[in-house]
C-alpha cells in the first residue's frame, strides 16, 4: 500500500508542475488574441463611448501590464482561486461548477458505454476474425469512426426527434414541466440519450478497433496456448486469459482520451444545446473571457491528470507487474 501512496504522490508532484506550466502557457496564448472582453461587450451593447470601454478595462484589470496580470493570476491559481468573471459577474469556480455536472454526465456516460460496448464488440470481432460478424463490426466501427461527430448528431436529431418524435432534441431537462423524483430522473435520462449516443459512438468505434487489434495480438501468445493445453473451455480462455491481457492497451488509450472527450463535447454541446463546459469554453474564447477560459483549461487539465492517474492505478490493479516498475 505505501508503494501506491508513494507512486501517487510522485505523480501528483509531476502533475502540479504540468498544470502550472499549462496555466502560464494558456495565459499567454489567450492574451495573444486580438481584442479583449471590454471590446466584445462594447460591440454587443450596440452603443459605446470611450468611457464605457475604459471603465470595463479598469474593472477587468486589463489596464495593468501583462506580467502583473500574470503574477496576479498565478498567485491566485496557486491558492486554488480561479478568479472572477466580470462579464458573467460570478466567480469562475462557481461558473465551472454549474457547468461541470452536465459535461461530466455527458462525457462519463458516453465514455463508460463506449468502453463497455467497444470492448464487447472488439472481443466478438477478434474472436470471430474473418467471419461476417467480424466484417460487419469492423465496417460499422470504421464508419462511425470516419463520420464527423456533429453530422451524426444532426442526423440523429433529424431522425429521432423531428421525424419520429421519440426523444427530446436538446437541453438537459424539460424545463417548466415540473417533474419531481423519478419522473425528473427519467426526463433527464431521455435528454441524455442522443448526445451520449452521438459522442459514445465515435469512441466506441475507437475502442472496438483497439480491442480487436489487441486481442488478435494476445490471442497468439504462448500463455494462451498453455491455457488451451490445459483443456479449458473457450469462454474461459477468452475472458480470463485473453481479454484480461488485451485490455491493458485499451485502458491506456482510454485514459488518455478521457480528457479529450471534453473537446468532443464542444461539438455535442453545441448541437444539442447542453449547458456544459465545452460550450462555455467556446463562448469564452469568442467573448475573450480570459478568466473563464483559463479556468476551463486548468480544470480540464486537472481532469486529464486525474484520469491519467486513475488509468495508472487501474493498470496497476490489473497488472501486478506495474508495482515493481513505476
Amino acid at each position, binding site marked *: 500500500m505505501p508503494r501506491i501512496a508513494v507512486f501517487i504522490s510522485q505523480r501528483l508532484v509531476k502533475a502540479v*508542475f*504540468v*498544470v502550472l*506550466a*499549462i496555466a502560464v*502557457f*494558456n495565459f499567454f*496564448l*489567450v492574451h*495573444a*488574441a*486580438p481584442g479583449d472582453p471590454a471590446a466584445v461587450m462594447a460591440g454587443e451593447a450596440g452603443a459605446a463611448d470611450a468611457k464605457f470601454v475604459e471603465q470595463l478595462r479598469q474593472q477587468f484589470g486589463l489596464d495593468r501590464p501583462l506580467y502583473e496580470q500574470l503574477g496576479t493570476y498565478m498567485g491566485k491559481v496557486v491558492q486554488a482561486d480561479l478568479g472572477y468573471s466580470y462579464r458573467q459577474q460570478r466567480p469562475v469556480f462557481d461558473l465551472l461548477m454549474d457547468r461541470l455536472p452536465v459535461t461530466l454526465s455527458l462525457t462519463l456516460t458516453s465514455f463508460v458505454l463506449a468502453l463497455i460496448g467497444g470492448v464487447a464488440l472488439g472481443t466478438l470481432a477478434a474472436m470471430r476474425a474473418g467471419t461476417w460478424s467480424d466484417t460487419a463490426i469492423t465496417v460499422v466501427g*470504421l*464508419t462511425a*469512426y*470516419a*463520420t*464527423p*461527430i*456533429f*453530422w451524426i448528431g*444532426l442526423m440523429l436529431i*433529424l431522425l429521432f426527434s*423531428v421525424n419520429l418524435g421519440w426523444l427530446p432534441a436538446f437541453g438537459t431537462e424539460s424545463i417548466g414541466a415540473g417533474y419531481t423524483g423519478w419522473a425528473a430522473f427519467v426526463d433527464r435520462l431521455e435528454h441524455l440519450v442522443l448526445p451520449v449516443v452521438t459522442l459514445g459512438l465515435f469512441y466506441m468505434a475507437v475502442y472496438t478497433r483497439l480491442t480487436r487489434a489487441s486481442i488478435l*495480438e494476445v490471442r497468439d501468445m504462448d500463455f494462451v496456448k498453455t491455457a488451451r493445453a490445459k483443456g479449458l473451455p473457450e469462454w474461459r480462455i477468452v475472458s480470463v486469459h485473453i481479454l484480461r491481457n488485451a485490455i491493458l492497451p485499451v485502458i491506456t488509450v482510454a485514459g*488518455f482520451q478521457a*480528457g*479529450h*472527450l*471534453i*473537446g*468532443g463535447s*464542444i*461539438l455535442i454541446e*453545441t448541437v444539442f444545446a447542453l449547458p456544459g463546459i*465545452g460550450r462555455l*469554453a*467556446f463562448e469564452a*474564447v*469568442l467573448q475573450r473571457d480570459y478568466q473563464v*477560459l483559463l479556468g*476551463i*483549461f486548468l480544470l*480540464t*487539465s486537472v481532469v*486529464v*491528470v486525474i484520469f491519467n492517474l486513475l488509468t495508472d492505478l487501474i493498470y496497476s490493479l490489473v497488472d501486478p507487474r506495474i508495482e515493481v516498475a513505476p
Partner: protein
Amino acid sequence: MTAAVITPSRRKGSGFWRAFARNKGAVLGLVFLLLVVLMAIFADVLFPTSPWDMTAAPFEPPFSEDALLGSDTLGRDIAAGIAHGARVSLLIGLTSTAVAVLIGVCLGAVSGFYGGWVDDAVMRFTELFQTIPNFVLAVVLVAIFTPSLTSIVLAIAIVSWPPLARLARGEFMSLRSREFVQAAVTTGQSNLTIIWRQILPNSLSPIIVSASLMVATAILLESSLSFLGLGDPNLMSWGYMVGAARTVIRQAWWMSFFPGIAILLTVLALNLVGEGLNDALNPKLARKGRA
C-alpha cells in the same frame, strides 16, 4: 524519406504490394482515394467555373437540370463544391499531417535517441500538449489567429503531433538498443548518420501508418472547425459545406448530406488504406513469417 521505405529490391517491393493487396478493403480504399485525388486535380476541368459561382437557383434539389447534386442556399452547385473541396480538404489534411509528422518525428527522435534529461524535457513538453484537450486547443488557436488556411493547418498540426512524438520516441528507443544500431556505433558512424540512415528508415513503417490515419483525423478536425464557423471563408471545403448547410438541414438535406458523405468516404478510405499499410508493414507479422 519515402525512397528509403520502398526499397529498391524488387522482391521486397512486390512482397509489400502482395501483402497490401491481400487486404481487399485497403485496395478499395486506395482506389477510392485515387479517385478523390483525380477529382481534386481535375476539378477545374470538371467544373470550370468557381465553386462560389451562383450557377443555379438556390435550394435546387439533387438531379435537377443545372445542379447534379443540387444547389445550396445561394444557388451554388454542390457537385462543383465537392470537386473543388476535395482539393482543400486533401491539402489541409496532407499539409497539417506533414507539419505534425515533422514536429513529432524530430522531437520524438531526439528524445528517444538521446534519452536522459533531453528525453525528460521533451516528454514533459509533449505531456503539456497532451493534457490540454486537443480540440479545445485547436478551437482556441484558430479563433485567436483568425481562421485562414495557415492558421487552420498549424492549429491541426499543433494538436496532432504529440502522439507521433511518442510513437517516434518509442521506436527510436527500441531501435537504439537494437544490435544493428549498436553495430553502427561500434563501426564509428556519427550520431546524425545513425539517426538518419539507420534508425529513421526502420521506424518509418508505424509512422507512415499513423500518418495515413492522421490525414483522416485532420480532415475531420478541419470539418469540425468549419462546423463551428472557424473555417477559411475563401476556401470551399467539405467541412465548410456541411457547416454552412447544417442550419438548413431540414429544408435541404442534400446540402450537408453529400459533403458529409464525401468526408465520410474519404476518411473511411484513408483508414482502410492505413490498416492495409499496417498489415503490410507491420514488422511483427513480417517477423512471424520469417521465423
